[in-house]
């Protein structure tokens, strides 16, 4: 408890110093507002769009895409990894195409996704999905492959059905490795979401950024960037909480 408290104090202090430096650069140092708007002007821009409801529309859109991409990427990553570890013959077939897709820079494919899947939600979710899929897939393969063979004996002795074996033994056993992939995937998902919105569409935090910079509304740009940072933090915290709940059995992890 004490430790957590002192950590919170540290975080607050660090944030305070950062804000002070920001304020100092814009106030006493008098950097022009089109380069760096003051904290107050950024705050005002943020409050303005929050009050008109515009912020929530953009934030909601980005968040929705990220969550959908994460969920779909996880399901597909885990499912394909599981099928591949259960059927090694299939793995031989899938290995080649997967390696090619994995090494292909997804960001570079992003314009292609727009061409193929349009300017709407679909191309954005597909980009996020492709960024989430591979880290989760790689983690899940590692998790399923390192399963203790004695666990297989156990499920055979108990005559578990395929579903029981997966739900009760294989998935929980692979969860730590899956989470490693998921955490990498979540960071990528945010990058992908913003990037996809830069390229096309009229909604989302990424769109808000391009709009603000195109119209020289630097405080608004800063507000959008700030919200993206906050979104990243929220995602991180949500995943950490989920990890604590699902993987508490792994043992004490302080932080």
């Amino acid at each position: 408890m004490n430790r957590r408290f002192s950590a919170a104090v540290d975080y607050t202090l660090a944030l305070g110093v950062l804000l002070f430096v920001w304020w100092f650069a814009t106030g006493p140092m008098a950097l022009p507002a089109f380069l760096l708007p003051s904290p107050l002007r950024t705050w005002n821009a943020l409050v303005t769009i929050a009050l008109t409801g515009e912020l929530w529309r953009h934030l909601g859109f980005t968040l929705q895409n990220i969550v959908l991409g994460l969920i779909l990427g996880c399901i597909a990553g885990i499912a394909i990894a599981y099928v591949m570890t259960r059927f090694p013959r299939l793995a031989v077939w899938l290995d080649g195409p997967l390696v090619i897709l994995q090494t292909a820079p997804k960001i570079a494919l992003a314009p292609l996704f727009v061409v193929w899947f349009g300017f709407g939600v679909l191309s954005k979710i597909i980009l996020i999905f492709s960024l989430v899929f591979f880290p989760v897939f790689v983690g899940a393969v590692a998790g399923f492959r390192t399963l203790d063979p004695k666990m297989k004996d156990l499920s055979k002795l108990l005559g578990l059905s395929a579903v029981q074996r997966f739900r009760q033994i294989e998935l929980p056993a692979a969860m730590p490795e899956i989470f490693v992939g998921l955490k990498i995937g979540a960071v990528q998902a945010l990058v992908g979401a913003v990037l996809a919105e830069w390229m096309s569409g009229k909604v989302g935090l990424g769109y808000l950024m391009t709009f603000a910079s195109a119209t020289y509304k630097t405080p608004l740009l800063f507000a959008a960037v700030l919200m993206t940072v906050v979104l990243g933090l929220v995602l991180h915290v949500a995943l950490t909480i989920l990890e604590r709940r699902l993987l508490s059995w792994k043992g004490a992890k302080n932080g």
Partner: protein
Amino acid sequence: MAQSERMIDIAGVHKTFVADHGTVTALEPVSITIREGEFISIVGPSGCGKSTLLRLISGLDQATGGSITLDVSGRKRPVGFVFQEPVLLPWKTIVDNVRFPLDTAGVARAQGDKTALDLIKMVGLAGFEKALPRQLSGGMRQRAAIARALSDDPPILLMDEPFSAVDLMTRDNLNDELLRIWQSTGKTILLVTHSVDEAAYLADRVMVMTARPGKLKCVHNVELARPRGEQTKLDPAYHALVAQLRRDLRTPAGEAH
């Protein structure tokens, strides 16, 4: 006690498998009949096929030939198996682990909890129901594994070197606990071990196996009085048997050909 009923009938069971350099005989034909409620120890060096025999009886592996008949009247899970390591699910508490076979068999939660808690008490883990496996010592985890193996009340308990990973003092305790559990449940137990002392101390009969190729060399009846305890270890007959088992294991058998 229907001690004469045949529980396990093993007739000419053998196992070979194909390796890089031809077929390897893991187990030469073995025949033995094990009565209900009997405690059998199987002792032998590494590679003598003792674990193989246990896996064949449990149905984990298929024999190359011969037959194994279990008198278990169509039970889905006729045997409980205790591995060398506890093989507990690390994300489940002890009570959840012990209840796991019942959960997966569709037994109602309340019923399963009752059985699991009783078993946990029996193996001496009362107070650790809500602990995770990693919070327990090796010996305690193995107790939990025994409780799990017993949870859906199989007539046969197979144990593959269950106490080889725990220290000697814990091992002595666990042996006595095992005898107590055996006496209170009337299970038919087959226990594989490296230790001739353990084999002689626990069993009604000791199967001696030798390696390369794995085969059953001989079977000794253990005539020591029950219940057994510290006084058993002072019994000259016990020492004579242990010495005999050591001799059996030392004489190279099957090297004539």
